[in-house]
């Protein structure tokens, strides 16, 4: 079986905001041949099918996702990156070259390729967990979506969806799903979350034209071929069935880490993405990772900024710069915190984007104090000014990084 073999300086997998950001910055700063590979026919990643505002620099209104996607694509191409779409990276070649470069295997309509790169940037993004992965029992009817599938169906393919819909999850992406449903002419019967009602969120967000059912767990789907309803259990033990023909599971994100795992990269238990340091280095020298692959899920402009920020360390790697700390120290969180990113220490002096770590929590915490410690030694203590809520990022300043003992064990972050 023949494969076309080539060598480039940097190979970027995935042309979403993160990969395009990395490509633009690397090409502009003279990294040599920078090639971005995208398996979809159109580049731009998830924003391609987001038709609501909230992208780019202006947080509310302004640019829609598809406009933003086009701008990211244009910037990368203008900077001189080679962007190829409709080609999929399917894996890593078995015999890697001896000089620390990496070889990836690619399938496209023009045939099979094997591309060797001195640096690889993984930017493969994240997806929402579908119903099956959430173990929602019941029949296997049609009419069951994730937001990604729903948005593509409605905005890219103009496919009909049902008439009465239930949205599971009330994070921003759930509201985007509700908007898409209404665009498609469906009535949103209810939005359901297992979280308690949040007073602040109700004030900040214009109220939907549908009831928000809080503290309710989805216990099953009814219907054999077509969906007939969603059954719920409320906190007080009551059960109800919402009659509907469409249900959208939103917001439970998981990194698309197949390539990362196939390369044997160390994963972080919390994020489920590759473990990485403030310079976007993974456990495999020469392999970097950016965007939602690292921490599902952040805003598109965060992913894009990470891509751009990764350019400097990639360039240092290409120039044969100093290797990272021989033994990175892992960072980990205690429940109810879910994860921290970045989640390992890197070369001395490396600071994460904007000098802060990103965290998530499983349940609402009123103005918590975050305590950083290593081997029983407290390194730092920071009080948050706002509550930490599920589904939204909050931050921890990185000032304490210099106090980490490089020979010590895992640094723990605890909310008290």
């Amino acid at each position, binding site marked *: *079986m*023949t*494969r076309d073999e080539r060598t480039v300086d940097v190979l970027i997998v995935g042309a979403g905001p993160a990969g395009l950001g990395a490509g633009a910055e690397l090409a502009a700063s003279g990294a040599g041949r920078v090639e971005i590979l995208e*398996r979809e026919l159109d580049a731009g990643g998830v924003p391609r099918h987001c038709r609501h505002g909230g992208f780019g620099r202006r947080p509310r209104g302004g640019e829609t996702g598809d406009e933003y996607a086009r701008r990211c694509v244009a910037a990368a191409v203008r900077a001189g990156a080679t962007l190829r779409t*409709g080609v*999929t990276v*399917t894996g890593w070649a078995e015999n890697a070259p001896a000089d620390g470069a990496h070889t990836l295997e690619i*399938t*496209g*309509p*023009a*045939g*099979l390729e094997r591309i060797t790169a001195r640096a690889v940037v993984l930017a493969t993004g994240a*997806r*929402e*967990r*579908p*119903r*099956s*992965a959430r*173990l929602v*029992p*019941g*029949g*296997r009817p*049609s009419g069951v*979506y*994730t937001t*990604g*599938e729903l948005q*593509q*169906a409605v905005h*890219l*393919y103009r*496919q009909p969806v049902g008439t009465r819909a239930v949205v599971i999850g009330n994070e921003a992406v759930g509201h985007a799903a509700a908007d898409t449903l209404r665009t498609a002419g469906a009535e949103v019967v209810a939005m359901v979350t297992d979280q308690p009602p949040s007073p602040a969120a109700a004030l900040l967000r214009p109220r939907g034209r549908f009831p928000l059912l809080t503290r309710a767990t989805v*216990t*099953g789907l009814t219907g*054999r071929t077509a969906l007939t309803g969603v059954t719920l259990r409320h906190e007080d033990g009551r059960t109800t069935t919402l009659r509907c023909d469409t249900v959208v599971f939103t917001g439970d994100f*998981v990194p698309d880490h*197949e390539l990362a*795992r196939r390369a044997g990269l160390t994963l972080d238990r919390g994020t489920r993405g590759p473990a990485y340091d403030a310079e976007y280095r993974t456990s495999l020298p020469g392999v970097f990772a950016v965007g939602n692959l690292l921490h599902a899920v952040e805003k598109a402009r965060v992913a894009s900024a990470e891509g751009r920020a990764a350019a400097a360390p990639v360039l240092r790697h290409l120039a044969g710069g100093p290797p990272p700390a021989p033994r990175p120290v892992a960072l980990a969180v205690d429940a109810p915190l879910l994860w921290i990113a970045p989640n390992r220490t890197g070369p001395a002096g490396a600071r994460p984007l904007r000098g802060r770590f990103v965290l998530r929590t499983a349940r609402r915490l009123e103005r918590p104090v975050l305590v950083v410690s290593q081997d029983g030694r407290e390194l730092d203590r920071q009080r948050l000014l706002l509550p930490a809520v599920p589904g939204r990022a909050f931050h921890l300043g990185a000032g304490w990084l210099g106090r980490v003992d490089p020979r010590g064990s895992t640094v723990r972050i605890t909310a008290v």
Partner: protein
Amino acid sequence: MTPTVTRAGELPDGDPYDVTVIGGGVVGTAIARELAKYPLRTALVEASDDIGNGTSKANTAILHTGFDAVPGSLEAGLVREGQRLLAEYAAGTGIPVERVGALLVAWDDEQRAVLPALLAKAERNGYHAARLLDADELYDREPRLGPGALGALEVPDESVICPWTTPLAYATQAVLAGVHLHLDCRVLHIDTGPDTHTLTTSRGPLRTRYLVNAAGLYADEIDRHLGHDTFTVTPRRGQLMVFDKLARDLVRHILLPVPTSAGKGVLVAPTVFGNVLLGPTSEDLGDKSDTASTADGLHFLREKGRRILPELLDEEVTAVYAGLRAATGQEDYRIQDHPDQRYVTVGGIRSTGLTASLAIGAHVTGLLTRTGLELGTARELPGITMPNLGEASPRPYLRADLIDRDPAYGTIVCHCERVTLGEIRDALNATVPARSLDGLRRRTRARGGRCQGFSCGPAVRALFEEARP
């Protein structure tokens, strides 16, 4: 000869069919394929919109050796013969099979004490390659196995097979050889005259001289139409979980439980698609269409799985499904000829029907001759090569030769399963084409992967809609 596959409208009238097979599961299609070897006018009628759409689409997909069958039973013989026939057939037609071997793992002293008896039973079933492993050998073979296992019986020939390609191959070959396949054609009523049966179907009447009942869960009801009331099918539900392909490296063999008085139990097995299966449950139900999963069922499976392969529980779940076994209150198959009625019942093919299918096909054809059918001279069936859905040999996206000839095989549409445009197009235009998104999934794996449509759902649907006549 143009293949005849119909889905709507009146059934062809004219002379009665020589033989009609009711039920397009793996058993019915295997029987139709066997009959296709002879110069007969044969029909295969199926109530749903696709073949293999009943129990046959939702099992554990193991090609059994039959080592643990009840020695001397009809099932034991047909499973052993069927395994040999199907392994050979699969090799010739490209049905994915992987001979991974099975380990019956003993977790306590009682189970360990049963292993020698199981070994002896395997011998009585004519299977001589099984052997006992001690705990060290077991953990050597299966390093990720949960702690505390005491030993195992190794059955090196147990294999995993593609449950979807198998009936599709049978049906394709049968149709190519001239069998008429009528889908969306439910048999509602049967009048048996002196020379012919008249079946009243959802698509009008169908006349046939000989009749085979391979209606799976509904075989008892078809039997009653002909005046036989010898068994009742009680659906026994089996719920299963499919884990992500990234879990595949955790397990090397089919990990079977040691059967105890409490039943057959839960297994962990690789699939030919590169996933890992956990299941099934075993629940007697009253409803022959209740293939829903339940919270209790999934909880039960997770608890079992945690013991067998603890790391499996950290992996993402790709799919959850349930199948219904056609239990009849008797251990053995209920295959019975009724010479005075030119009729054969093929009932109670509970949990080994995939393995035994080809042997059942030959056995039933033999019984038909006992009821008076003259087969005529057998001829070669047209050779077929099935699309490869298995990971053990290169799928189209890895084949430079195919992509060279047609770039559609290099255009990946479903990313998780790496299904190409070429494969989707082929499945929509095949001899027995995909007529639903689920049918397309069973022929290509499209939309069957970890994202369940997040990335490719609408694109696959669009291709499907475009191809609809």
